[in-house]
């Protein structure tokens, strides 16, 4: 079974079929995906701007992170819950879509970096450490690559 055939059978699943045959389901799920993007961006940026020393400098970076984290997780869950059905409705288009491959490559990197690199280091750090800025920068680049490539799926 080739990868294209896997994508084809994914597209043929009932969920993709239901979205394709509906007039409003795709736009509706897409709009929720955008609301999720806003929350994801806010919860990522508030921590990264703190690490860059550009916001909430009077607060410990770990505190900024701990408060944003539940809503970051909520946003990630929302993005998967809406993004997967959207993808299932057009798997063959995505197979030939370069932007989607960029997004789907950057996404696991962004998630792994956030949960296994940035967050553990920030939570362990007692005093503010200027070198944490690098973590903020990498996080912003990774997440904005995901978001930008995601938007570009519709153009390419």
């Amino acid at each position, binding site marked *: 079974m080739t990868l294209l055939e896997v994508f084809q059978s994914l597209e043929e699943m009932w969920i993709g079929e239901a979205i394709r045959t509906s*007039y409003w389901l795709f*736009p509706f799920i*897409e*709009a929720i995906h*955008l*609301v999720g*993007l*806003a*929350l*994801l*961006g*806010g*919860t*990522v*940026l*508030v921590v990264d*701007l703190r690490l860059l020393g*550009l*916001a*909430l*400098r*009077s*607060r410990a970076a770990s*505190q900024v992170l701990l*408060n*944003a984290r*539940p*809503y970051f997780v909520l946003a990630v869950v929302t993005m998967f819950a809406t993004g997967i059905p959207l993808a299932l409705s057009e798997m063959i288009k995505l197979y030939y879509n370069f932007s989607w491959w960029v997004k789907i490559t950057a996404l696991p990197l962004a998630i792994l970096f956030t949960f296994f690199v940035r967050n553990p280091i920030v939570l362990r750090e007692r005093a503010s450490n200027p070198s944490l800025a690098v973590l903020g920068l990498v996080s912003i680049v990774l997440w*904005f690559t995901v*978001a*930008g490539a995601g*938007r*570009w799926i519709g*153009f390419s």
Partner: protein
Amino acid sequence: MSLRWFADWLDTHAWSTALHESLYMYPYIETTHVLALTLFVGTLAIVDLRMLGFAYRTTPISTISQSVLPWTVVGFVIMFVTGLLLFYAIPVRTYHSVWFRIKVIMIVLAAINATHYHYRISKNRILWDNAPRPPRSVRMTAAASLFLWVVVIFSGRMIAYNWFDCDRPQPDWVITLAGCVIDEVASL
């Protein structure tokens, strides 16, 4: 007298057509508009969550506002400028878009809500600045802010779809809401 003449006038601009038909410029502006949601609505959500008592409960509201809201403003400026350009590229259709009209009304309501908070509710902020869970009036204005901006995102996304466009057969209520010009509808 409607604002249609203004949309028509914009539509005569060569740059409006050039932007609409450009291979990369329009998508770049659109992408910037969407990515700026993270900066604008995203950081605003952080402030609203604090005002609702859902996050940063041990941080004074004034600390969060003073430090985070400047980024919200940057996001808003980016959204507004790119939004104007997107309107400029497709003025007449957007002017008649039911979704665009809903979006503008919601933005006006959000602006009224923000002004009301700034000039009325926050007057006695000293009393609840440190409160983990601020008074009801404060939480209400934060909830209204979140709700209104979510509706703005929804209606903004829907502008791209042509369900209610004037150049397709529409029921009377759509023609009224969209302000379709009857002569143009009849000529279809």
